[in-house]
């Protein structure tokens, strides 16, 4: 049985995911092979310049060979390599682009919108890129850096800070690095965002949430004999103490919030676990943007704002965590932003969700939002 139509869909398509992934490599020029409509939306999500063939009707009818050669020719000297991401119509037409671009160093990612969602396109891009591990490479790879993620740069900085405290250098940042480094990744990887894991190297775990953070650095110690994780463990303990202290004070005055969380499954579960552990919060539902794994919390997979509205109305949470879309249907519940898009507020600082600063930031936002709501007349 085919999936029924979606009402107010709030998650980008595969093409966007592929572009956002590849745009993280500074020496890789990314070309959206499609119309201006596809390009303009993607351009609003990705914080670095991307390019487009800006196709028009006659190029669909008579072939896009000349147009592609023109755009690729213009850009070839500016980048180490070019990536062409197919949108829906060129994908269906199926022109053999390798044939007429044989003079150029290009990779072609077939990620039309109809082939899936954001994370599906991201995965196709990684699979086409085929990163490689160099067993001799020192340092730790940072995974889960996804340019459309509002916490992308904050996560990168926080991951680098914690690794440096443990005496470790960042190796390859997936995907916020050079193409060259993608083919010389270190053997061990940590994930700043658990929903975007490349699978490159041995996974030491996620940096998101206090428990996963401890577990991740314990594993790093086991995998990397030159790591000194004690300063990081001390920092995690200190952060946890601060969270416990603030949450205990909150609980002396307020009931724990019944909470609905809407984000990628990995991120949502990390936040849910912290809220349960430190604030005794009831997680009434996790609305997962991507395919969920097993969870101790109730989980529904949805990218449909109508379904999300129904979930919020049904569960009547005190706290909603999600994107600007959930904010519009949160009603009188407190709201904390977690996933894209975040709108209606200014974000200048490089805030992380990962690491100790990320955990502190999430809990700080939750407690402040809950207090603000309680104070409203």
């Amino acid at each position, binding site marked *: 049985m085919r999936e029924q*139509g979606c*009402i107010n869909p709030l*998650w980008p398509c595969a093409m966007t995911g592929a572009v956002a992934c590849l745009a993280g490599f500074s020496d890789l020029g990314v070309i959206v092979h499609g*119309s201006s*409509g596809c*390009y303009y939306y993607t351009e609003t999500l990705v914080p670095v310049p991307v*390019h487009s063939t800006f196709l028009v009707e006659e190029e669909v009818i008579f072939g896009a060979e000349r147009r592609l050669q023109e755009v690729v020719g213009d850009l070839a000297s500016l980048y180490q390599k070019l990536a062409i991401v197919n949108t829906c119509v060129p994908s269906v037409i199926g022109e053999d682009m390798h044939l007429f671009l044989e003079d150029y160093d290009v990779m072609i990612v077939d990620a039309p*919108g109809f082939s899936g969602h954001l994370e599906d396109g991201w995965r196709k891009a990684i699979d086409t890129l085929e990163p490689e591990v160099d067993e001799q490479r020192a340092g730790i790879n940072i995974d889960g850096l996804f340019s459309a993620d509002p916490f992308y740069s904050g996560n990168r900085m926080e991951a680098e800070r914690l690794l440096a405290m443990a005496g470790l250098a960042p190796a390859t940042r997936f995907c916020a690095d050079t193409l060259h480094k993608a083919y010389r990744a270190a053997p061990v990887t940590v994930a700043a965002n658990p929903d975007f894991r490349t699978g490159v190297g041995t996974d030491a775990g996620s940096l998101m949430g206090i428990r996963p953070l401890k577990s991740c650095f314990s594993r790093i110690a086991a995998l990397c004999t030159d790591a000194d994780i004690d300063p990081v463990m001390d920092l995690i303990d200190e952060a946890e103490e601060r969270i416990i202290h603030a949450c205990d004070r909150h609980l002396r005055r307020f009931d724990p919030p019944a909470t609905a969380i809407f984000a990628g499954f990995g991120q949502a579960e990390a936040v849910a676990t912290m809220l349960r552990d430190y604030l005794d919060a009831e997680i009434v539902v996790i609305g997962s943007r991507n395919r969920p794994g097993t969870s101790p919390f109730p989980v529904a997979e949805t990218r449909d704002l109508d379904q999300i509205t129904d979930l919020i109305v049904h569960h009547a949470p005190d706290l909603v965590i999600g994107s600007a879309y959930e904010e519009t*249907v949160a009603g009188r519940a407190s709201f904390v932003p977690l996933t894209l898009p975040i709108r209606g507020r200014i974000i200048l600082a490089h805030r992380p969700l990962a690491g100790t600063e990320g955990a502190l930031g999430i809990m700080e936002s939750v407690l402040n939002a809950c207090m603000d709501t309680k104070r409203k007349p």
Partner: protein
Amino acid sequence: MNSNPLPLNLSRYEGCTITGALAVSAFIPDAPTVVHGPTGCAHHNLSLLHATLLQQDRLPLPRVYATSLGEQDIIFGGEEALERTIEQVLQRKPRAVCVISTCITETIGDDTDAVCGREWGVPVIHLHSAGFLGGSFNEGFVNALKGIGTLVSPAEAHDGGINIVGEKNLEFEVEENYEEVARLLGLLDLEVNVRFVRNTRVDDISRFSEGSINILREGALDPIGRHFHEQFGQPYLSGFPVGLQGTRAFLQAIGDACGIKANEAIAAEKALQEEVAADFADLRGEVINLSPFGFQCPEFFLLSEVAGAIGLRIAPEGTEIPVPFGTPVGTAGIRRMLHQWRRFLHA
């Protein structure tokens, strides 16, 4: 972005027909829109709508359905998905349904007209779009206005007031621009009949033909003006008022079209414009340089007219002032622009 188009084709850069069509259909509260294509197409345009509505402090979001075509639908056709989605929409008892096709449904040859043309119990209108294959934003916008026009019932008399046609619903100052036009009409004791289309219900749209004259948002909508003139016999005015003299000419044109003497209204507006000029008398003698920022037109007559009225001189050595992105509407728009100019001069 690539700036070397081949072949020369301006539509290359002008966005998608879906965005244009949705900029109309999403503003009919009791006629939900179905985007017939992959979920991503609906999301991309809904996202733009969401960002825009947040800036206009207007929430919640209109209801936009996606037929959510996947690979199997692309291979075997998406008409069944469209049928199912229309049935899903009808469960909520809308007064009408708008259907926007996408480039991929056009490519695979779905007969969207045929599906929409079946007996559904309420009007199901195919707003011809087809993504970039149907043109660009403006074609989507114009086709949507034409399509929505099929909801209009013919009237025996055109005495119901003035219709406003083709407001730019994604424009930041859309409400302020409307209020200025409504204020000017008020000087002539005229009222707005139908805003076609901005937050207008289906029953109100059906009264469109009762309007005595259609005021188009801008000249690019002249084909729509002619379309409704042929269909309902309504004259049209090609664009909102622009400039000091232009605003007074707008009053004269409306008065002529409606058989109303406009002399008093024009005199009142001229007095208001003199008040505005007096409010900015402190800028007299300042020198400004209008900056096009690469794509705007600094020779636009409005800017030199306003500068002259205030006593500003335009010269290359003057303080750089950007040409406004949106053309100020009426005297109120000019006043807001002058506040910005003062800020530039004093910053």
